[in-house]
């Protein structure tokens, strides 16, 4: 007798990912799809993909989706969620989308405690446009627009989104994870589940930041990329739970 222990989640379409080998997006997509399957919310979920490498996320997720202009995902998600209170709404955003062009929309959706989930892919670089500096680019990191390395005087410092947003009262849950090892992938999956559960319980804004490899633009192989996240990037962006008000004591919902 055979038993299926691993298969494609129902919430992922049959399409082949266009992502580069070693890219973290495909793992993140799969984890979200697994959670949607496990929570049985495929039919009541609406996703908002960003501009960037994940702009084609609607080719992969088998849930209703509408693409947002660059950075505006949380504003659009706010509009959807306010009208459809019983639906699950998530935006999927990169570091440029969330922390540069869309910082205002992200900050204020978080501050309003919108009952949505933001999945934030932090790979310290603009991927789709060819490897320019992101707000989360590390100091000294070379990108096509910081050819001699990010300089703190000229380019400013890496933006720490979990630290920043977890200071807002509207934020119920914020965790930073990575997808560099089976252990970290499992932790990320748990974080995504918690974020969606937070939404199910109408507790307010939830954020999962995922440190994600971009071997192509980092000019490393996939294994080196994972090591770079573990040894370098996660020193600047420490993994962990930055805020968790999902416990019963906090369940006087701040959400709409």
């Amino acid at each position, binding site marked *: 007798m055979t038993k299926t222990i691993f298969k494609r989640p129902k919430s992922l379409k049959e399409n082949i990912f266009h992502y580069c080998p070693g890219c973290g997006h495909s793992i993140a997509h799969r984890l979200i799809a697994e959670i949607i399957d496990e929570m049985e919310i*495929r039919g009541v979920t609406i996703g908002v993909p960003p501009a960037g490498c994940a702009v084609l996320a609607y080719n992969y997720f088998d849930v*209703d989706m509408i*693409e947002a*202009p660059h950075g505006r995902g949380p*504003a659009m998600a706010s509009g959807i969620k*306010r009208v459809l209170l019983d*639906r699950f709404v998530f935006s999927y955003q990169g570091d440029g989308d969330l922390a540069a062009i869309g910082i205002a*929309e992200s900050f204020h959706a978080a501050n309003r405690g919108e009952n949505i989930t933001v999945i934030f892919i932090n790979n310290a670089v603009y991927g789709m446009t060819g490897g320019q500096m992101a707000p989360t680019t590390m100091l000294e990191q070379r990108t096509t627009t910081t050819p001699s390395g990010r300089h703190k005087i000229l380019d400013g410092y890496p933006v720490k989104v979990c630290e920043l947003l977890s200071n807002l009262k509207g934020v119920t849950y914020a965790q930073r994870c990575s997808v560099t090892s089976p252990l970290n992938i499992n932790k990320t999956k748990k974080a995504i589940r918690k974020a969606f559960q937070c939404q199910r319980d109408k507790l307010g804004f939830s954020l999962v930041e995922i440190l994600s490899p971009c071997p192509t633009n980092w000019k490393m192989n996939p294994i080196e990329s994972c090591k770079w996240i573990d040894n370098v990037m996660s020193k600047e962006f420490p993994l962990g739970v930055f805020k968790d008000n999902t416990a019963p004591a906090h369940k006087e919902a701040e959400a709409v």
Partner: protein
Amino acid sequence: MNKFLMSGNSIIGEAAIRAGCRFYAGYPITPQNELTEYMAEHMRNAEGGIFIQSESEIAAINMIAGASVAGARVMTSSSGPGISLKQEGISSMAACELPGVIVNIMRGGPGLGNIRPSQGDYFQATRGGGHGDYRTIVFGPATCQELADLTMDAFDLADKYRTPVMILADGMMGQMMEPVVFKKPKPRQYSNDFILRGAGEGKSKFIHGLILDAIDMEEHNWKLARKYGVITENETRHEEHKIDDADLTIVAYGTAARIAKGAIKRLREHNRKVGLFRPITLWPFPELQLRALSQKIKNFLVFEMSTGQMLEDVRLALQGYATVWFHGRPGGAVPTPAELANVVARYYDKKD
């Protein structure tokens, strides 16, 4: 029918709520603040009504895009500088074919300009405004009654053609008070096929403006263009005032058309036969209707509270069949009917 004495900004808000608008997002900017405040006050009394004071005009337009795709009737409002910020989202709504109403209570520009009534945003409104090959339906109301009627019509047209519709008024229209009657709104007709509510047990849908294949993107552009063609054919509106015996016709819209009517009264008291052609839809522009008029009237004077924007549409419409003069007061200056009458009289007396 009950008559209500209300300010223009409040009238737009009331008409929108009566038309079934249940989602409004906006950011304060003068001279349209009363509209945002009206929605804040009255949306909560409307069943299912949602009001959000957004962090920016950019956020507001994207919020209404989200609420629109979720199936609500939606509106946002602003003035010049804020409308510029909304253009990214208006372009996106046009691309994704999302209905929504955008109100621009124009002020003096460019840049921050001032908060006086002006008509400098005509190009921005009628040429699409944002990036890419698209148009928005643009209404240019000239009375408070029209603010009420056209706001309701704007929601119907937005649904019918699945496209953003703009109300283009100015600070004068927003601030003035006139008695109005609110007509009975039509029941909404909008297919669930275009709404995202989660896939249920069925096939998932996605809505996007990103079309990477050039031929597919071209076809999407042509599809939009065909839609704009149908709109042009069916939805063009204008008013003719004292045209029948006119030797000279003023072409003006909105507040400028009101001033023109005052001027025409004075001009006719001195036996100068002047009429008015007033576009009500600024896009689609009543091009053929204006051209038809040039068969019997050979002298036109475009009057705008700008340096001459609609002037270009008038010239395109008349195609050289008639003489076109222009008088403009940009930057928030509002001429009196007497001033305009003097200007028009000079042209009238030197016409052929």
